[in-house]
């Protein structure tokens, strides 16, 4: 089945700016990546959806707060409710939190500065569809670039997230944004929706510094291929 190129949709919001990198990276890793316009009320036949990085709707009000009203996001929520695979990167993570598909919220970095550099994250779970090519404890070197990446959950929510083992990635060496419990990426309780602040689509070729992001995207493509095989 590995010759099947599973179709993966990348939602393009006004203000998205990593959509093309995501499309390119997914294509380079064996998917048929297709853009999905934010105003489309339905998704094409896809095995997975990626919400890319950027500044949807200018980050007005709160980052990600306005994108959740896009028609395409209602379709993504339906897709996720049926078990569809959804990966939110950076702004996509913010959107998924604001939409209530993932726990917590992304707040302005504790330093108040925009951070743009490679960071190391530790893989906390390798049993999600997004991390099957990783192993627990593995360190991934992936770039971040955000002003509002400080993941926050209050005590009660943090306990729930810990009980359900929802943290997939943690900052390993230094916490670049002040996130609670060093969280860099979380998954929903069902395990089919994940968000992360680092940009795996910017780390798929060692020539550009690191190929570690490919492990996450290729895991997603593997899972999308399986989902495709089941539905056809």
């Amino acid at each position: 089945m590995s010759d099947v190129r599973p179709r993966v949709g990348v939602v393009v919001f006004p203000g998205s700016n990593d959509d093309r990198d995501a499309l390119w990276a997914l294509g380079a890793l064996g998917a048929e990546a297709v853009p999905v316009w934010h105003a489309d009320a339905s998704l094409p036949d896809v095995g997975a959806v990626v919400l890319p990085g950027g500044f949807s709707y200018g980050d007005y009000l709160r980052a990600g707060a306005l994108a959740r009203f896009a028609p395409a996001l209602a379709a993504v929520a339906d897709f996720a409710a049926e078990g569809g695979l959804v990966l939110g990167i950076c702004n996509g993570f913010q959107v998924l939190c604001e939409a209530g598909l993932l726990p917590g919220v992304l707040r302005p970095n504790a330093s108040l500065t925009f951070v743009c550099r490679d960071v190391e994250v530790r893989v906390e779970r390798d049993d999600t569809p997004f991390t099957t090519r990783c192993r627990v404890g593995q360190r991934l070197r992936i770039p971040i670039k955000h002003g509002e990446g400080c993941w926050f959950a209050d005590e009660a929510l943090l306990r729930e997230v810990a009980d359900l083992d929802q943290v997939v990635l943690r900052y390993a060496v230094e916490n670049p944004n002040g996130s609670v419990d060093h969280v860099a990426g979380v998954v929903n309780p069902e395990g089919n929706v994940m968000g992360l602040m680092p940009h795996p689509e910017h780390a798929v070729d060692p020539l550009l510094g690191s190929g570690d992001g490919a492990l996450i995207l290729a895991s997603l493509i593997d899972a999308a291929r399986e989902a495709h095989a089941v539905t056809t």
Partner: protein
Amino acid sequence: MLVRPKPGILDPQGQAVESSLRQLGFAVAEARIGRVVDVRLDTDDPDDARAQIEQMCEQLLANPLIESYEIELAP
């Protein structure tokens, strides 16, 4: 409506302003930054207006995880 970070929530914007105010010589113990949203509604019924604005805050203007809100009505 006035939307502000809940007590205990780290407010880096407020901290930055607080330190700048201190540099200006003001004895500021703490500064926290919120947001004011003014809306005009087509209703004369204060209860109706308040109910509508509460919905706005709950659904969009405040994130209940980190922000609280206050409503003030003006005729």
